[in-house]
Structure formats: structure tokens, C-alpha cells
């Protein structure tokens, strides 16, 4: 693959072009580089995700779409979870070492699953990386399509828990709030100890990053920029409805909006 041009990646507002190629450069390739460092910081399950998974009955089968390092795959040993991620095959390799579950590389918009088979799904901190409103709603629609429908026998449909980053996080160190731009680059500063090897720690030309010019010989750290869409209050719930789903419960936790949703009755969109 020829080297991709290095964008002028600055923190802050950014206008995405809404394409898959944009996400490849500003999301997937970045995670490929920061996988081991990212994984080392992602070990504690968030309380609402943990509760959701522990509430699933024994023998439930579900998906973790955008599983990253797979930290949620092992929360409840009495359920079966299939994790997938496309951002980074390095992250999936970390996830795959969690023995009692399974994981592979797949795109959230082209999931390799039959429709209406799953008891549940989670997608934590993933959909905010899609770079257009249409792609974000489509991602929710695809998740809902995998879930069991409510049936005539009175059985409930499957449920999905979705988390996205909130625009309203005034108390966080980033300090964004209502009225700020929603499409932004967010830096990930990676220390040298996480760079895999001299051969693979060259971010230039393969990702959206900035390198301190003065330290180009032996950089102490490298800053990568990831694209995010920051969700306004009720925006995620609106997306669920646009995707043909029903909101069961929703809320705000630690700078994130979350929703538990279900497909409405009837046939899923193919």
C-alpha cells in the first residue's frame, strides 16, 4: 500500500467527509498503532456495561461490536460473546487471548452474522467513530438487525447496549460542552515504551499523527489524532428511533451517553 499523505492533524474541530476511507485514516490506522498502549489503559469494565452483561441469563449468546481488547468478553462466564473489531487486528489479537469467548476482524457495517439470532449485543465507544449521520444510524440499524425479534409467544426481543462519547462533558479535562463543535480530532499521546519495534514505530505516512520534529531520531512520545463525533443529549436516542429501534432505557455515565434498545416488531431490514 502506498503511504497515505499525513494530514495536518490538529486537536479540535474537524470536518469529516463521511467516507469509509476517512475512517480508515483517522480511526482504524490510529488504533492499529496505539493498540498495546490503548489496551493497557482499558482494563476496568464500566459499571453499566458490567450490570447489563451480568443481567443476561445463562446461555445467552451475544455480540460485542467493536470489542477492542475484549475486556467485556469475560465479564460474565455464563454467557457466550462473539467480539469483532475492524479498527485494529492488533487489538483483536489481544481480545482473542481471552479463552472462553471468541473474536475476529469484521466491519460493523458488514457484520458476518445471520439476522435475528442474537440475545443481546453491546457496542461500547464505537459508533462515535463513524463520520457521517447516515453511517452512524446505519451502524445502529445493523446492530438491531442481528437481534431476536419480539414474538407472538410473548418473548421479548434481544437488547443492545450502545455507548458513545458525549459533547456535554464540562467536568472532564477536555471540557467540551453544549454548543461546541461535534466533529473533532482527539489526541492520543503514546509513550515510547508502547512502540512495538523500530520497524513498526514509524507512524509517518501511515496514519494521522504528528511527531515532534526535534525528537525525530528517538521520539519520547508520538501524538496520534483520532476522529470522533461527540453526541448531543438525546442524539443517540434519536438515532435508535431512526434505525427502527425502541429505546428501553438510557442515560449519561462518565462523559458518555448510553442507551439500551431493542428492535421493534416486524422483519429487520436486510
Amino acid at each position, binding site marked *: 500500500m502506498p503511504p497515505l499523505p499525513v494530514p495536518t492533524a490538529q486537536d479540535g474541530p474537524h470536518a469529516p467527509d463521511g467516507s*469509509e476511507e476517512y475512517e480508515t485514516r483517522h480511526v482504524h490506522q490510529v488504533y492499529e498503532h496505539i493498540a498495546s498502549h490503548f489496551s493497557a489503559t482499558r482494563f476496568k469494565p464500566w459499571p453499566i456495561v458490567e450490570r447489563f452483561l451480568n443481567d443476561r*441469563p*445463562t*446461555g*445467552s*449468546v451475544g455480540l460485542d461490536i467493536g470489542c477492542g481488547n475484549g475486556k467485556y468478553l469475560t465479564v460474565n*462466564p*455464563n*454467557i*457466550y460473546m*462473539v467480539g*469483532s473489531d*475492524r479498527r485494529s*487486528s492488533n487489538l*483483536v*489479537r489481544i481480545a*482473542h487471548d481471552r*479463552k*472462553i469467548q*471468541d*473474536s*475476529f*476482524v*469484521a*466491519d460493523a*457495517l*458488514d*457484520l*458476518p*452474522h*445471520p*439476522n435475528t*439470532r*442474537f*440475545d443481546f449485543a453491546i457496542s461500547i465507544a464505537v459508533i462515535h467513530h463513524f463520520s457521517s449521520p447516515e453511517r452512524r444510524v446505519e451502524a445502529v440499524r445493523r446492530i438491531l438487525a442481528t437481534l431476536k425479534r419480539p414474538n407472538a409467544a410473548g418473548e421479548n426481543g434481544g437488547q443492545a447496549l450502545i455507548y458513545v462519547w458525549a459533547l456535554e462533558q464540562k467536568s472532564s479535562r477536555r471540557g467540551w460542552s453544549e454548543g461546541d463543535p461535534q466533529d473533532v480530532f482527539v489526541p492520543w499521546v503514546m509513550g515510547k515504551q508502547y512502540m512495538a519495534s523500530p520497524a513498526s514505530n514509524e507512524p509517518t505516512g501511515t496514519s494521522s499523527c504528528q511527531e515532534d520534529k526535534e525528537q525525530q531520531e528517538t521520539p519520547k512520545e508520538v501524538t496520534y489524532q483520532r476522529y470522533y463525533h461527540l453526541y448531543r443529549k438525546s442524539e443517540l436516542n434519536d438515532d435508535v428511533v431512526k434505525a427502527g429501534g425502541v429505546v428501553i432505557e438510557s442515560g449519561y455515565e462518565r462523559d458518555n451517553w448510553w442507551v439500551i434498545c431493542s428492535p421493534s416488531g416486524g422483519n429487520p431490514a*436486510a
Partner: protein
Amino acid sequence: MKILTTNYLACAVKTCKSEPAAFPLHFKDAELAREELELNPEFIKNVLPRIDWPALAQTAAELGFTTLPSQKPENLDEQTMKDLHTLLMETQVMEGKLVCGNCGYEYNIKEGIANFLLPNHLV
């Protein structure tokens, strides 16, 4: 790639989604490994009703597991429980391909990890 997972896999190509031939995917050149795991009887008992049995029987036959009953067992005796645990949870496909019976696309499995990303012309 565990065998239980394959019971939940279909071709990722959109036009294959509604085609019966796109599920289950078929193994080609599969290299298997077995990793012992503790049996969770309650889990096996509860996962059984969720399994698409004809698809599992087909997958098992392709991989050379010939002892699987042709019908979904009504009652799980100890041996059947153990056999199912071995097949669904302990058996892993480490290398090989998963092939769509509808479009013929082949998904690679390397070091136990399958890759379902599609080339641009199939997205």
C-alpha cells in the same frame, strides 16, 4: 474460531444476507486444535435451544465429527453434554477458510482469528 461461533456466522456480503445458501459458512482446509476448558453444564443446557442444529450438524460433518446426533437431543445425558462441550467450546479452527455457499467468497482464518473484512467491490 470456536465451533459455537460458526453457528452464528453468515456471509458478510449484503446480497447474501437473505440467501439460505449463505448460512452456515463451509470450512475448507481447516486445521483444528483442542483446548481443554471446564465444562459448564448449565451453560450447555441453556445454549442448546439457541443452536441451529441442521447448521451445526453440517459444520460438524465437514470437520469430521461423526458422532453428533442428526436431531437436536431432547435430553442431555452426561456423554452428550461432554461431546457438545468439546465440539462447541473446546474445538478451535486455527487455520483454514470459511466459504460462502452462495457467492463463493472465502474468508481466511489465521492463528485462530478469522477476517471478515470485504474487498471494496463487495461492500
